[in-house]
């Protein structure tokens, strides 16, 4: 790394409809010295990222909302819950990956349910990691390489962005509980 005088803080956008989980993830991220913005829905996340009104072509801001022009908002990573009312974490992930300006932002999914098909769909859609809740410090420690990789010089597409969009219907959020095996321990990325 070249001689940077001050350490730039990475900015993480956390999305979760549960207040408790938002507090938790915020605290976890802050102890890792990340700057955190936490929102309670996918819609608010899209608004924050400037994706809500128009894909990438909106030049005038929506006078009503607190939509920020996404060029002003610098987000280095998005971590989102999967099961949320309104748009799910998966939908959010898809929209981000379909956006020309935002597709390179690493996205991590969190879920309380260990459903292999769900995990695979998210990974295929471009999620970097899938964390089982409750998320721990050891999970958050896995974020750094993803942040480091997308900072500074952009390398060639390291993720298969041209994956055919699998529009198979997503199974419901409320699925039967499985045994709580820590899937992400076996995850090799």
């Amino acid at each position, binding site marked *: 790394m070249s001689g940077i005088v001050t350490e730039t803080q990475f900015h993480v956008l956390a999305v979760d409809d549960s*207040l408790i989980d938002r507090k938790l993830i915020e605290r976890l991220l802050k102890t890792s010295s990340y700057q955190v913005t936490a929102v309670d829905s996918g819609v608010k996340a899209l608004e924050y990222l400037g994706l809500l009104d128009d894909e990438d072509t909106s030049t005038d801001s929506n006078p009503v909302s607190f939509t920020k022009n996404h060029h002003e908002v610098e987000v280095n990573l998005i971590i989102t819950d999967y099961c949320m009312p309104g748009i799910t974490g998966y939908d959010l992930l898809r929209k981000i990956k379909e956006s020309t300006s935002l597709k390179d932002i690493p996205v991590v999914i969190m879920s309380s349910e260990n459903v292999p098909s769900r995990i695979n769909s998210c990974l295929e859609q471009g999620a970097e990691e899938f964390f089982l809740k409750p998320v721990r410090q050891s999970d958050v420690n896995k974020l750094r390489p993803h942040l480091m990789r997308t900072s500074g010089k952009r390398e060639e597409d390291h993720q298969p962005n041209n994956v055919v969009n699998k529009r198979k219907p997503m199974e419901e959020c409320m699925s039967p509980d499985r045994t709580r095996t820590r899937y992400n321990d076996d995850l090799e990325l």
Partner: protein
Amino acid sequence: MEVDQLQRTFHDYHASLFNEGFLDEQFVQLQQLQDESNPGFVVEVVSLFFEDSERLLNDLSKALDQVNVDFRKIDAHVHQLKGSSSSIGAQRVRNACIAFRNFCDERNIEACLQCLQQVRQEYLLVKTKLEALLRLEQQIVAAGGASPM
């Protein structure tokens, strides 16, 4: 009471909550997130859990009282409660929620009512214990000791 004695009481009580299955490893994770820069973190999260749980238990009561019971709604509430109890390490509440959801799937009202009672009971138990634990912490700090959390 002497600080040392309070500390010992705390330590023993804390250990018992784990031994008896009221709390699991996740609670320890919470404690680790508390430090001098965030001295009230555990209290804050636990208080949120209390508020959240009481709201959800009320909603569940009402939902099961309806003429036409909406099991999807009930399942959604239980899912939320399961999530928050899991996030703070309230193991027995979480397990009661898991059982509850199975009966939701079966659309069995009687069983759901019993489950609700079970969940409420476990919640009240862990609430009492957590309040006692937090009170001990307060006493230690008030007596000049360092927070054992």
